């Protein structure tokens, strides 16, 4: 009986959110799914064409395979780099050293600034004629390393990646909250038993962060799958298609007037997101966690 009452309350609390999701997300999702199977130019009435869009995307669109590979690369890089850096930042903040709040504010700054502004800043940092990066390399007598960072396919991918990959503020703060939520007594017992602080973090705290690690990995993966603004503003997917991502390809396909094709890629992108989230959940979160 009590369980039934709980369920009712849970439902009531979820209801406002559910209404908004249905009103503002369900409709676009349905449109995406339906039009992914249609020939549609965005203006005239969509015409059902079966799997034609998917056939073209998988078999004929040369950009798609590169966009998929790049997106998967970014997913892996983002998960590894952001989760690691966020974890380190979380542990550093959990020490609550003097001025730790300033540190927390500082690492959050890039997450607060508009991505368009950051991308523009990096665009000028990478500028071969007047950019900061080449200027620093020149001052350090490393002129041979100077490059036109966004123009070469060998450097563009990493130049674009570095423009956002290190922003671990949000992930770090989530880790910090989880760490300070672990009872202090457990850590104190370990210290009394002769563990160093580092050993306490590794053997006592870290195992209890599994669910938080999974959450942050999911956040990082979803961010990477949807990454658009930095890539589009810096290279538009170029040079050639060396920095093409699924999100940029969706936009470019729609720009070309092929909305049906764009929706099919968008749907594939969404399915990829579901698979990645499912895999992370499967690997890191057990039912009993």
């Amino acid at each position: 009986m009590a369980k039934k009452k709980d369920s009712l309350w849970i439902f009531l609390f979820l209801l406002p959110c559910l209404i908004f999701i249905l009103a503002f997300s369900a409709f676009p999702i349905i449109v995406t799914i339906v039009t992914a199977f249609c020939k549609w130019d965005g203006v005239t009435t969509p015409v059902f064409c079966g799997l034609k869009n998917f056939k073209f995307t998988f078999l004929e669109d040369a950009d798609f395979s590169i966009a998929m590979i790049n997106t998967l690369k970014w997913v892996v890089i983002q998960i590894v780099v952001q989760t690691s850096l966020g974890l380190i930042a979380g542990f550093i903040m959990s020490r609550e050293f003097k001025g730790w709040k300033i540190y927390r504010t500082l690492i959050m700054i890039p997450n607060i600034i508009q991505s368009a502004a950051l991308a523009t800043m990096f665009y000028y940092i990478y500028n071969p004629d007047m950019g900061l990066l080449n200027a620093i390399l020149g001052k350090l007598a490393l002129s041979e390393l100077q490059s036109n960072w966004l123009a070469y396919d060998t450097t563009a991918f990493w130049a674009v990646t570095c423009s956002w990959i290190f922003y671990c503020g949000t992930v770090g703060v989530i880790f910090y909250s989880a760490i300070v939520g672990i009872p202090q007594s457990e850590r104190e017992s370990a210290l009394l038993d002769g563990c160093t602080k580092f050993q306490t973090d590794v053997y006592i705290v870290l195992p209890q962060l599994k669910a938080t690690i999974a959450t942050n990995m999911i956040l990082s993966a979803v961010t990477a799958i949807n990454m658009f603004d930095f890539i589009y503003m810096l290279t538009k997917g170029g040079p050639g298609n060396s920095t093409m991502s699924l999100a940029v390809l969706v936009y470019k396909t729609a720009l070309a007037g092929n909305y049906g094709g764009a929706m099919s890629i968008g749907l594939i992108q969404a399915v990829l997101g579901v698979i990645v989230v499912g895999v992370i959940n499967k690997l890191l979160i057990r039912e009993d966690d």
Partner: protein
Amino acid sequence: MRKTNLKKKVVSLVSVMVIAVLSLTSCGVNKDGTEGREVTIRVPSGLVGTHPSAPYFAADVEAFNEQYKGKYKAVVEEIPGDANFAEKMNVMLTSGDVPDVIFPTGMDYFEKSIKAGRVVALNEYLDADPEWKSSISEVGLEYNSRDGKVYAIPRDRGILCYYYNKDLYKKAGIKPAETWDEFWSNCDKLKEKGITPIALEPSWVGNIFFSAILASSGEDGYALVNAKEKPTKFNNEDMLNALKKLKDMYEKYADAGAVVAKYENAANQFMNSRAAMVANGIWMTNDFSDPNKAPEGFMDKVGVATFPGLVFSYNNLGIGIGAKTPEKIEAALAFVKFMTSPEKQASYMDTVGEFADSPKVEISEKLMKNKPHMVELWNIYNKTEVKSNIIGNTWYPAVIEALQTAIPGFVSGSMSAQDVIDSMEAAATKASK
């Protein structure tokens, strides 16, 4: 009994709503003394904010509202920024929320909207007003027509050129080239003097230069630039040669950053005398005399020239009508007539620096005094036999973007000319599907 009560409530509610709507509806006396409801029309426009044309457009709208006070009222929906405006218009046309007056931003969407029956055909209105019809150029009308129906009225046309810095040219001992060999030789001479010959970026400015190179490279090249139907095949000798020239231009005659530069970078470079040439429309001369953009006296340093052997000249999309009801169509029609009248075209040419479409507009004395570069270009235009369009008007936007995205890789050597052509053809195939 309950049913009757409900009926009464519904009737009362409807009556209250009708009264409220009627009381809110504006009534007034027209300028000609007739009484009637003022018809309001929606006019989304990007000519707002810091846009160079904003003050002139605002004044024109105000003048229209004054002339038709009490009868029609144009309400401008401000959408600042060219890209924002294009995106918003596309969303409006796509979603069916078609405004009463349409300033088209791209041929693709305009054509699709025509196909979807969202744009009013203007033939009967033009036929009913022969004076108005005669004030529009035949080529301008043809460009804005599909299957014999006119869907928009043009008020300007594009004539493009390149500007050169007279001081830097003098330093290198050169004059505007008459042949391409001379043009490249000029670039070499500028380079020898330590001057960057061309302020370049891969979108607008780069497209003008590439259009010039390709259109002059041979018959196939000219046909590609001036294609009537959007081309999907680019693999020919002229294209390969033009791409090689394009690569040379970026490699030898522009800054290293040009391959990833933006329009602002190229414009600033030229206006700060850090490059000898830039390609653009005549409207750029307004920037030359803007103290916020160029040093004082820069205008006098600038000369105008056209590319060897050809001049760029093309028709523009005009103003269309998306209104649905007869009264709104009538109001929108009055607005379009007002904005495209020869007087307005002349003043637009005078202030903004766009060449008028109407054959009834002549370059005025005042214009000659205020816009010497415009007069110079007009003379060059009349003298030059070969006229050409630019790829931005005749190719799919996706192909232009594919070319633009390929340029860094092509110039750096990671892509061959054939790779560039392949990526353009792939983009064209996708766009044509």
